[in-house]
């Protein structure tokens, strides 16, 4: 792809992304969200991050990849426990990475 075409592509993706991010803020600039939409909104964050996490851990190129002897899901499990107990993002990522390195030595 030529550089000019690439710039156009990136600008287009940037514009689409910005429109998405502004869309609902713009549409509901002067009125309240309908009640059902506001109720749904409460679950947007948990659902989005669960889907992002699950696909980052178990999906590769459109295929579900899960193996019991793969270190990453187990390291993620350790990280979840730390996250749940401490609520500390720093500790979660630190312990998760450390667990991955340890598990790679063992598994």
């Amino acid at each position, binding site marked *: *792809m030529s*550089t000019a*075409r*690439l*710039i*156009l*592509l*990136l600008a287009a*993706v*940037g514009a*689409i*992304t*910005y429109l*998405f*991010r*502004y869309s*609902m*803020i713009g549409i*509901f*600039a*002067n009125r309240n*969200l309908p009640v059902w939409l*506001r*109720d*749904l*909104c*409460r*679950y*947007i*964050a*948990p*659902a*989005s*991050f*669960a*889907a*992002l*996490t*699950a*696909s*980052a*851990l*178990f*999906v590769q190129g*459109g*295929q*579900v990849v899960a193996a019991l002897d793969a270190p*990453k899901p187990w390291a*993620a499990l350790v*990280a979840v426990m730390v*996250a*749940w107990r401490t609520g*500390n*993002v*720093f500790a*979660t*990522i*630190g312990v*998760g*990475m450390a667990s991955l390195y340890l598990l790679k030595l063992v598994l």
Partner: protein
Amino acid sequence: MTQTTSSKWLEFLAGCRDEAPLQLGVVPFGMLYSIGALAAGMPAWLVQLSSALVFAGSAQLAIAQMLAASAGALPIALTAGLLNLRHVLYSASVADYVRHLPRRWRLLLAYLLTDEAYAVAILRYQRDDAARAAAGDDGGPPPRPNLRHWYFFGCGFTLWACWQLSTAAGLLFGARIPLEWDIDFAVPLTFLALLTLLIRESASQAAALAAAIGALLFAGLPHNLGLVAAILLGLVVGFTSAKGRRATP
């Protein structure tokens, strides 16, 4: 006047502080993007520029991967667009909280509405809501002065700055990071850490579980539609589970 100015900065700094730990996951993400984009043949200056233009990690990574596979412009734009479709939901989710702001603020905060900034800002807003509900407040306009948009701005700004710097760092040092370090693993760990903060009540847990299962069930859908489908499934399950519990006390 001086009082409000310093409160604004306190809010801004609190946002920066709460966003900071997440940068452990953002930095590798940004560096991975640079490495991938360079490998796909993108000029370095354009790699850096794209991080400001697009400012969306997963879409940028997808663009780099598809360029490397010599995909056409239209499929790439479609995939990146669909990957970012979830931002429409984020936009709906913050709409009520930013409505009272001047337009320039809404335009700015929309630009900064990324996964990690959204998660931290929405946690703050929802915590405030919960605290006010517990205090018997009916949910009318919040007490003045309301400076929470400065907190949101602090989150967004921290992430933005870090994203630009980590893109640059990837351009400079990316080639020297050994694959065995698995720095890419920091990305799902960040999402995990955010997720656990977000699911403290049972309807949210149901939503998260359904969305996670959905992400695996719908993984095969074309054009990355699986992610959006999974999130929508999570929304419906969370919504109905909350309804069901209200109906049977």
